[in-house]
């Protein structure tokens, strides 16, 4: 399934946060969305997920998603790992994962729907009865990604998953995303860590002031001038 974003437009009152942004993410692709704070990365992801109103078009396969409610969009095969993780800290780890099942399309999926996630993130299995708020930041990020994955989405959206994590945990998160892409999901990753993202993604779009400024490939990851230039342009 291919996610196609066409002429996406988001306004908050007088602020034009996203201006006519167009891009696409195919199955098995990892696409980066980079840019400084306030560039419109979160607005783009939230608009795709139906959390904020937007103009333009967002299609998954042949289905138009724009204008639908977020719970319906979740059920068409999109899952968002939101900024700040937004896990339910008073619920247990496993209850958080069970909530992820709400977005699963096939009602009678596997009887042990968490096996895949527990295999990828063993710490979640070990702490499955623990209150989610007691996990460390990195563990909570694994939970947020796992919660999105149990819905078995076609498209995984991530909003700054590396924010506030220790460097070795950031490595772990990027490695996990590589595994997810290998499985054939379309992955859209919004990040401030430009260099890491450009290196990991098939292509990375640079957002600035709500507009798509340019597109970088993995070969540009070590081209510091180009990266810095992209941010300052």
């Amino acid at each position, binding site marked *: 399934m291919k996610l196609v974003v066409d002429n996406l437009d988001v306004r908050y009152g007088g602020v034009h946060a996203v201006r006519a942004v167009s891009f696409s993410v195919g199955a098995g692709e990892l696409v980066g969305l980079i840019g400084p704070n306030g560039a419109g990365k979160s607005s783009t992801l939230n608009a795709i997920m139906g959390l904020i109103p937007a103009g333009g078009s967002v299609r998954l396969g042949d289905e138009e998603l724009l204008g639908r409610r977020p719970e319906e969009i979740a059920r068409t095969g999109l899952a968002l790992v939101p900024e700040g993780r937004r896990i339910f800290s008073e619920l247990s780890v496993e209850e958080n994962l069970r*909530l992820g099942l709400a977005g699963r399309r096939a009602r009678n999926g596997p009887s042990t729907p968490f096996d895949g996630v527990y295999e990828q993130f063993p710490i979640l299995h070990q702490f499955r009865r623990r209150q989610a708020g007691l996990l460390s930041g990195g563990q909570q990020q694994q939970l947020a990604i796992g919660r999105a994955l149990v819905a078995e989405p076609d498209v995984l959206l991530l909003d700054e998953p590396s924010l506030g994590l220790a460097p070795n945990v950031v490595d772990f998160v990027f490695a996990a995303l590589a595994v997810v892409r290998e499985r054939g999901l379309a992955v859209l990753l919004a990040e401030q860590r430009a260099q890491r993202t450009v290196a990991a993604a098939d292509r990375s779009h640079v957002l600035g002031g709500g507009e798509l400024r340019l597109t970088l490939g993995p070969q540009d990851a070590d081209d510091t001038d180009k990266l810095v230039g992209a941010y300052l342009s």
Partner: protein
Amino acid sequence: MTVTWQNLADGFSLGAIFALMAVGVGLVFGVLRLVNFAYGQLVMAGAFALALASQWGWPLWAGIVLCFAVVLALSLVMDRLVFRPLRGHSPAVMLVATFAVAFLLENIALLSFGSLGKIATSVTSLNRPWDIFGVQIRRIAVVAVIVAAACLLLLQLLLTRTEIGLHMRASSMDFATARMLGVRANRVIAVAVLISGALAAIVAVLLTVQSPLVTPDFALQNTIVVLAGVVVGGLNRPIPATLGGFSIGFATGLLGGALPTNQSQYLHAFVFAAVIVVLLVRPRGLFDFSRTVERV
């Protein structure tokens, strides 16, 4: 002041009834962030259904069925016509709207049935005393406690053991994130409103047995006391709400029976003064022991 066994039993049964109302109010608050001031009018409507059924000579069970039907239908109508269109508005707007609904319903009852009200005669059999080890206890006191305990246990099982229960709990913690994960907002709200309505219907039956004279302001004062109890206990979580509702109901029932009449008229003044003190000392509620654990 002398406390008799009957006073204690009255305290327990009023506490049980108030606990049910507190949970009913708290459930809807959890998912809609709306304090439903019109909750008492749901109970009033159910009580009138019982009174009418007994006037028509219906058997008790048919009256109870009618009571449930009326209260549940009214709950759904309230949700569709008032709560849903106002969802997401400021709490002040929603509170004022439920005030309006409350007085609308009360005045409809006033126009339809007059201020003198009706008597539900069919339920009085439950009001006779039982002789337990030489102590006279009204049956309704025992029935109320058992019914309330069973309802709250069932509700707790629903909330902790079922999928819809998990969705309801998550929605009351962070509705936006729950919806983002695919939790159906309208279904969660409808279930909360229906359970809340069912509790109102049960309360209507229990209260009507205790005081069979049904007037348009039936349960109005109780609702105010319960809202105070919910605030004392802590909104949003069933167990604190239960404890809050129970303790304020128990205090009211016990003192109301035990104090001589010339003192019990000050009872509500004392109860609300106590509520103010509690809110000053423990703003998050008397029974909210949850630690906020959040890591960044």
